[in-house]
């Protein structure tokens, strides 16, 4: 069957089998592998994408059911080369360790902040309660979302993805030197 939907602002059209799940469609047909495929049973939440702005577990939604809807994946978080404040928050507050749960966590955080710009700890914990971080880094994830709430325009609206990736931006303070000094003292 033929399906059409909007993914990260782009219209996509594909011919698929009705039984293809949204997570596999996004990863394998569209090649957007930022959406992770985890437990396959709607428990872990690493496959979360936004459907019309709401987080959904894409392992339990058929691509056919998402047709006609607006889908946003982690690849669609950064806009015009600028990282989303949520992404910056996860960098600032060390919101990830292995990174497997991170795409789903960040999308849920984005949806939460869109609905509730100043969530408290409990509201953040409730929002991510359907998602599992097996590094158990929940405290830093909660801090990362707080950081994003406190910086709705990001640390530096001009920080670009490239600058962040090659370290030439000023969005992230240079903590490396501090760490090295601590290690030397220890």
């Amino acid at each position, binding site marked *: *069957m033929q399906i059409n939907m909007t993914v990260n602002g782009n219209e996509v059209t594909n011919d698929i*089998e*009705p*039984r293809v*799940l949204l997570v596999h469609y996004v990863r394998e047909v569209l090649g957007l592998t930022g959406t992770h495929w985890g437990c*396959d*049973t*709607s*428990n872990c*939440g690493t496959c*979360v994408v936004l459907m019309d702005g*709401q*987080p*959904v*577990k894409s392992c*339990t*939604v*058929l691509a*056919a*059911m998402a047709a006609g809807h607006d889908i946003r994946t982690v690849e669609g978080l950064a806009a015009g080369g600028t990282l989303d404040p949520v992404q910056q928050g996860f960098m600032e507050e060390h919101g990830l360790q292995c990174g497997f749960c991170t795409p789903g966590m960040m999308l*849920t955080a984005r949806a939460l902040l869109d609905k509730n710009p100043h969530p408290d700890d409990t509201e953040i914990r*409730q*929002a991510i*309660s*359907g*998602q599992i971080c097996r590094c158990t880094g929940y405290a830093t994830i909660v801090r990362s979302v707080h950081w994003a709430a406190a910086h709705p325009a990001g640390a530096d609206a001009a920080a670009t993805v490239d600058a962040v990736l090659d370290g030439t931006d000023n969005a992230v303070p240079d903590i490396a030197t501090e760490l090295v000094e601590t290690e030397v003292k220890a």
Partner: protein
Amino acid sequence: MQIPAPFDYVRATSVDDALELLSRHGAESRVVAGGHSLLPMMKLRLSRPEWLIDINDLYELDFILRDGDKLRVGALTRHTTLLESAEVAGLFPIVRDAESVIADPIVRNRGTIGGSLCQADPAEDLSTVCDVLGAEAVIRGPGGERILTMADFHRGPYETAAGPDELLCELRFPVRSRSGSAYEKVERRVGDWAVGAAGASVTLAGDGTIADAAVGLTALGLDHTVAEAGAVLRGQRPAEELFVEAGRLAAAACDPVDDQRGPVDYKRHLADELTRRVLRLACTRAIQTQEG
């Protein structure tokens, strides 16, 4: 990788269209709304429909509407919508109690009240909620509309009165003054099925005695309300000894099974303790409503 067996997919464009599709494909078809029970079953090949009829475009079934002494809720109303509705929480606080512990917030964005009731899982919370609130189920089929009490609609685990060519369209909740309700669940972690849960609804008479009361249990081997508890509560003044007696009756009436979520005696203990707690809270809420 869990992938469903092949099927044909069709999107219904209206209730009439859905009914037409159901009468054409009948027993070989399944209706999908939120899909968070059906799709996992299809992925495990426990369910292998030939046709999947998607009703997510039927916005006419997504509503919460006060209609005289009834609150009408469309079958396609999402859990999140029910949880966030101030009107529902004001009239039936049990709904907010239950919705806040159904699955997790992301699953609640998709799951619907109609889907939950039709799945009729023994650990499903809304069947108990609808049962104690005295809700009616509105079903449409080729023969027109049928309105059933929950006792007639909910026939047992995974079984309802909705036939293969019928669609659950709406739930109707009677609005009663001087009423209170509450729900409490014990679960091992967010999103897990209940170890056990209890729900209660209480209506007070003008003199402060209990005019009507219903107690229901979830995942504890009882499909309908605890009749003995309702009988002992009626006509009495709310009091701790009364709640203790109702708890004892609920524990005696239930028939839980021993499984990985707990042994039988622990589950009976839950039936007892949770019944007392929800009755206490439901009565407190009914008194507050009376005073308010």
